[in-house]
């Protein structure tokens, strides 16, 4: 995973709440067995609508998405994060995220920045007034700024640390292999195993 310290880019206002992961990428687009190429399914149901924000020429090339509350609720599909990243997003800003979506973002390198609803409203107003406004997201300082606005965002410390350093979770965990083996030795005998199969 690439390290993430600071990102500067333009932002799209997504004035909707409860954008669940089925809206971010419908299930029919999840059939690929590869890790890339999911941008075609991003917001598939809305992409034919010329009024949809990402279809407006003034929001071409955006890399920050500012969404209403409860963004990424629903299914656990990490494809939702991949679709956003494949499309070009590096940061999603919202006042509330689905838990699994937020976890997946941290794993895949998409920054899910949690702000107050008031900050979302201000960001919407700013980038609607001037879509070319540069939005700066500083993970070191945990701040987001655009035009006159500068506001803090929340992210859990551990995800922040991993993003800043571009660390791979599996590698970190395997450095604690001895702890895992020690734990395994204490598991009770009555715990089930899938093998050998019983019918």
């Amino acid at each position, binding site marked *: 995973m690439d390290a993430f310290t600071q990102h500067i880019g333009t932002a799209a206002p997504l004035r909707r709440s409860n954008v669940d992961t089925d809206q971010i990428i419908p299930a029919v687009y999840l059939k690929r067995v590869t890790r890339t190429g999911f941008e075609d399914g991003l917001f598939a149901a809305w992409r034919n609508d010329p009024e949809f924000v990402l279809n407006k020429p003034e929001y071409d090339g955006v890399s920050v998405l500012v969404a209403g509350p409860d963004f990424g609720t629903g299914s656990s599909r*990490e494809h939702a994060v991949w679709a956003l990243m494949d499309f070009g997003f590096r940061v999603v800003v919202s006042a509330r995220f689905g838990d699994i979506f937020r976890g997946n973002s941290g794993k895949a390198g998409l920054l899910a920045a949690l702000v107050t609803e008031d900050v979302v409203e201000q960001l919407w107003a700013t980038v609607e007034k001037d879509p070319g406004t540069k939005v700066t997201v500083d993970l070191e300082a945990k701040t987001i700024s655009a035009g006159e606005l500068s506001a803090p965002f929340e992210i859990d410390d551990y995800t922040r640390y991993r993003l800043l350093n571009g660390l791979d979770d599996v590698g970190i965990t395997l450095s604690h292999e001895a702890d*895992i083996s020690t734990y395994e030795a204490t598991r009770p005998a009555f715990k089930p195993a899938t093998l050998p199969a019983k019918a």
Partner: protein
Amino acid sequence: MGRTLSEKVWDAHVVRHADGEPDLLYIDLHLVHEVTSPQAFDGLRLAGRPVRRPDLTIATEDHNVPTLDVDKPIADLVSRTQVDTLRKNAKEFGIRIHTLGDPDQGVVHVIGPQLGLTQPGMTVVCGDSHTSTHGAFGAIAFGIGTSEVEHVLATQTLMQARPKTMAVTVDGVLPDGVSAKDLVLALIAQVGTGGGQGYIVEYRGEAIRALSMEARMTICNMSIEWGAKAGMIAPDETTYSYLKDKPHAPQGVDWEAAVEYWNSLATDDDASFDREISLRAEDIAPFVTWGTNPGQGVPLSANVPSPDDFDDENEKVAATRALEYMGLTAGTPLREVRVDTVFLGSCTNGRIEDLRAAAGVLAGRKVADGTRMLVVPGSGRVLLQAESEGLDKIFKDAGAEWRGAGCSMCLGMNPDTLAPGERSASTSNRNFEGRQGKGGRTHLVSPLVAAATAVLGTLAAPTDLQPLDVPVPENV
């Protein structure tokens, strides 16, 4: 001070704790399916890592599989590739897999419990948000993304921040004809889709204790629909009698030791929760959703709400959008809403008890003209059980379609989808825009409401049906 059920199970699985870091949790059971696993196995291959515990891992194919012609190759080539990829990965990494046509193939959250692999006090994960289902046994069970699937395959652990605790207490007795599905839909309508965020929820109280394991699974299954990390119910005699004869249940002295441990898991009297919610079972009625998230629900006896009924500006906007998408007019009685398709199935309501409940309503009756009904058992074993009880005949005689096992129309990844504008009454878990097919309109309901709706062709409860002249046979 005492501990809650979830705290006890959590503490028993901490491999490593360090201040300022998430806990490293041991995972007792990892369920794998074809959609969220291919990139995880690829990751292992790239890093040259094995699956640490194939003996704590089990795979099945459910999301993509057809429910017709299951003995033929999958017609959709992309779906077939995904299913074939899982089969190859299972073989390469030594993982047990149940493929199409095997009685233990089916929705991943149906097969774990039916094999007896889901037990109290465990940690269970799967790359699927409805993993919360397994919490019905007193396990901590939650959905994970593909990066985490890879992490569990490689290490049999997960890094997890400790969630807060919440109690949902339901006292009293559920009225006749009111099911677990109605209860959980009513709860979500009250607390909203984000109400459980950051919490592991324990469902407790007299009404929960009275529920069967199937009904408990329905409740825990929907925990994710109000944002909870997981939902749990303390194990009791109902749990043990469900588990006792299952293939992977502990045997002999192991059973005794297990029960003794499981009995110690209940929340201590002096434990406290970070948040508590109470409901009265008597207040719950048959419930349906009218909108495009599971929190947009009302009793079946109500009218379609108006955006003006909501104070919150976001909810107002969401209601306006939802009514437009659903093609509904505020003020219409829900009982007058015509339904094109009834879907009975899914990890929420695709178990034998759900099929029995619906068959009990359909016996001696017919599905309305202009309405189709799909019955999709949750697993091959549920299908065989239903057929041995003659339920398939009741469904077919009523004019419903009897299908093979899988996720099917719950998420429409296989050919079972709604057409644009088509309206369903569905026993599944999500009424999101396009969930069951692009432009499809979903009303979430219980199996009883689904069956009655199939008969009348409009949203209905069994009490809305004309009594039958001939009594229903006793076995349903």
